């Protein structure tokens, strides 16, 4: 039973954690480039340098006494996002929908007063959400008004696109849809749903919840998930491909949000992207990376890589012999 399952997964080219760590992250992601993705302030800086659009940064805080400056930073902004620079897996992110009379309403509907906000930021600054508990910085940035395409398939929060970029090629992607269970967060660990996206067409596949159940209906809204076209898909792929040069990492998870006005914005990068994207796509990552290996031998511009990737996707990621 175990052996049969093992063989079946191997045949499908499914990547396990050990494989990802040993054969992808270790050889392709040099340690010295990790800070670029681990520190979201640095990611933003680099992204601006490379012309990759990001949510506007309103300001950042490094020490508790700077919290006084908070009000000034967000004075004229109705909504904003509080984000620890080193937070992992969406921990510590606070999405403020609107502020009124010194009180903040979060995406989850909670009402915070200045005291609550200060406590949250202090916790984040002292490293509660960072890897290893090191002192952290807090960013205040533009709250994305997400594209209406996802309106009926997400419960509050911001749905985002996760694109796996292998040696510069966008090879697999999914959209993560917040649910009531995930408290409006687009994190699969917290109960958000992941729906695979066809690289070639930008069409969504039936979604998969964190519990690995395949279902085509959003549990909170009841709307069908598959068959939706992601707007600005080509642009999103191009952004993702450019992140390869930006971060210098050969195995990368690129998180992109679709803003109603500004189009795709780079949210964050991940040097150790999760493996659930495989379940959302019903396909193994290894199978796809192997198809891209011959292409990666020559260097291409990001635009060329996107074209090659879509081409390969159209052929079902079967390398030349199947064409």
């Amino acid at each position: 039973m175990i052996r049969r399952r093992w063989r079946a997964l191997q045949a499908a080219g499914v990547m396990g954690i050990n494989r990802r760590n040993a054969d992808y992250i270790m050889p392709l992601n040099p340690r010295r480039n990790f800070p670029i993705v681990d520190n979201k302030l640095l990611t933003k800086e680099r992204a601006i340098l490379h012309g990759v659009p990001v949510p506007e940064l309103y300001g950042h805080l490094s020490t508790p006494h700077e919290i006084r400056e908070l009000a000034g930073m967000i004075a004229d902004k109705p909504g904003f996002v509080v984000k620890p620079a080193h937070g992992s897996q969406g921990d510590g992110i606070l999405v403020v929908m609107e502020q009124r009379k010194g009180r903040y309403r979060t995406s989850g509907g909670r009402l915070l007063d200045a005291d609550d906000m200060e406590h949250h930021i202090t916790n984040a600054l002292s490293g509660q959400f960072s890897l290893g508990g090191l002192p952290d910085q807090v960013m205040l940035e533009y709250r994305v008004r997400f594209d209406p395409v996802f309106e009926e398939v997400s419960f509050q929060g911001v749905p985002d696109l996760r694109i796996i970029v292998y040696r510069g090629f966008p090879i697999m992607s999914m959209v993560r849809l917040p649910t009531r269970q995930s408290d409006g967060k687009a994190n699969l660990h917290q109960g958000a749903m992941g729906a695979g996206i066809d690289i070639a067409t930008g069409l969504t596949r039936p979604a998969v919840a964190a519990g690995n159940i395949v279902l085509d209906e959003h549990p909170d809204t009841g709307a069908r998930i598959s068959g939706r076209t992601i707007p600005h898909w080509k642009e999103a792929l191009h952004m993702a491909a450019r992140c390869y040069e930006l971060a210098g990492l050969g195995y990368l998870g690129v998180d992109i949000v679709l803003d109603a006005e500004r189009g795709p914005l780079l949210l964050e990068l991940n040097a150790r992207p999760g493996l659930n994207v495989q379940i959302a796509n019903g396909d193994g990552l290894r199978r796809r990376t192997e198809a891209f290996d011959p292409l990666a031998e020559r260097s291409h511009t990001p635009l060329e890589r996107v074209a090659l990737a879509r081409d390969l996707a159209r052929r079902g990621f079967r390398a030349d012999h199947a064409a």
Partner: protein
Amino acid sequence: MRLRHLLILVLVLSVIGTGFFVFKWQVLGFPLSADRDADTWTVEARVAFSRSTAGPVKASFGLPTEPPGFRIFDEQFISRGYGLALEGEGESRRAVWSLRRARGEQALYYRVTLFRDRGHQPERPVPRFPPVPQLEEPRASALDELVTRVRQESADIATFAAGAIRVAQGTEGGVRLFTGARPDAAAQADLVIKILHSARIPAQVIQALRLADDRRDAELEFWIMVHNGSEWVYFDPRDGRRGLPANMLVWSWSGEPVLEVEGARSPRASFSMRYTIEDALRVAEFRAQRDYPRIIDFSLLNLPLDTQSLYSILLLVPLGAFLVVLLRNVVGISTFGTFMPVLVAMAFRETQLLNGIVLFVLIIAAGLSIRFYLERLRLLLVPRLAAVLTVVVLLMALVSIVTHRLGIEVGLSVALFPMVIIAMTIERMSILWEERGPAEAIKEGIGTLVAAAVIYLVMIMPAVRYFLLVFPETLLVVLAAILLLGRYTGYRLTELLRFRALAGGDK
């Protein structure tokens, strides 16, 4: 390339580890488990003689060599002013005591400590066919006649030897010619050998000591050793019975007198012995100390006892770490902190498994509720951690006091839980609880407990603890296994479940 490097390293480590282990086990005789005792005999030979006038004396005494079924691990000579020289090698090993001016009753001692090792049967050389004894008449024809008689009554070498022994005990004239009027064991044994040699059967007289606890004034007995073409067979010359009893210690491989004294009268060698049960490990150590002092100098067993007991625990840590690697990277259990389960397992050693789990859950649960309460007070991270730590210690004290009051002793061992670790666990669990939901937090908590329980169950095996203390070099093999797992890129067992949806289509 990198993989080959790793494989070579793994191979080298395993070879060194197992090599050392096999050497200590096979050559030095380190026992594989703690409960093995060694039957140990201390035999003291008293060599006595007397001289009425002062003058030079030289006493030569045969020493035991390679007695079958025994190993010698200690020898002492009590020489009382005599010069001592060890002469000869192998079977003819002798102690030679000498003194220029000796007078009166003299007694010298040789003490040997042996332990029983039934498997130790040193190979003895295959002899050549002995020449037929050349005798004068009438002994020649008498011997011929005895040989013929024995041959008629025998079928093979073994029965021939038994027949020869029976005949040599007879009292008729033909036998008397050899054994004399008052036959003694030496003469009888000698006749047996003569009969066997006449039939060209390799045979020799040996002398052995019958071991019995607290026996004093024992003397050596003659035994007959016959080569039956493939191996040596022992016979008791008194009744012709075959086989050397387990309590016979072969002292001399010849019939020659064990003690030869020049310059003194009435030489006598008598033996006394004592039986003790020694720890087999100590015996092995003793031997190693004598034969390979370098190696044993680097043994953990030479450390002071309290340091040793510390190491018997410390050496379990790498094993625990190895199990964590196995559970996390091969099985795929998620746990709090990488090596937290090892520490919890160490604490379980003191509390026992069930009590340990109950106490652990109790303290974590109580600490967690306190932590959630503290969250409302809006404390900064470090003071909050310190507060949780303080509360954890107080909780431990409380549990101990309450259980003591109730007359349950286990509660007292709660103090052995690594409290800082527990405080950190509570902190991490509460963040996980808030950020990822209770399900994730409880899942990791259970994973930690399961891993700790598995590690604990391995750690408490006395055999494991003993094995690592006596053969710490096996940790090199553990290290090799850990390194090898460092390149394990296969699926984790839990991933087989996690990705089951992807396996469905490929049946």
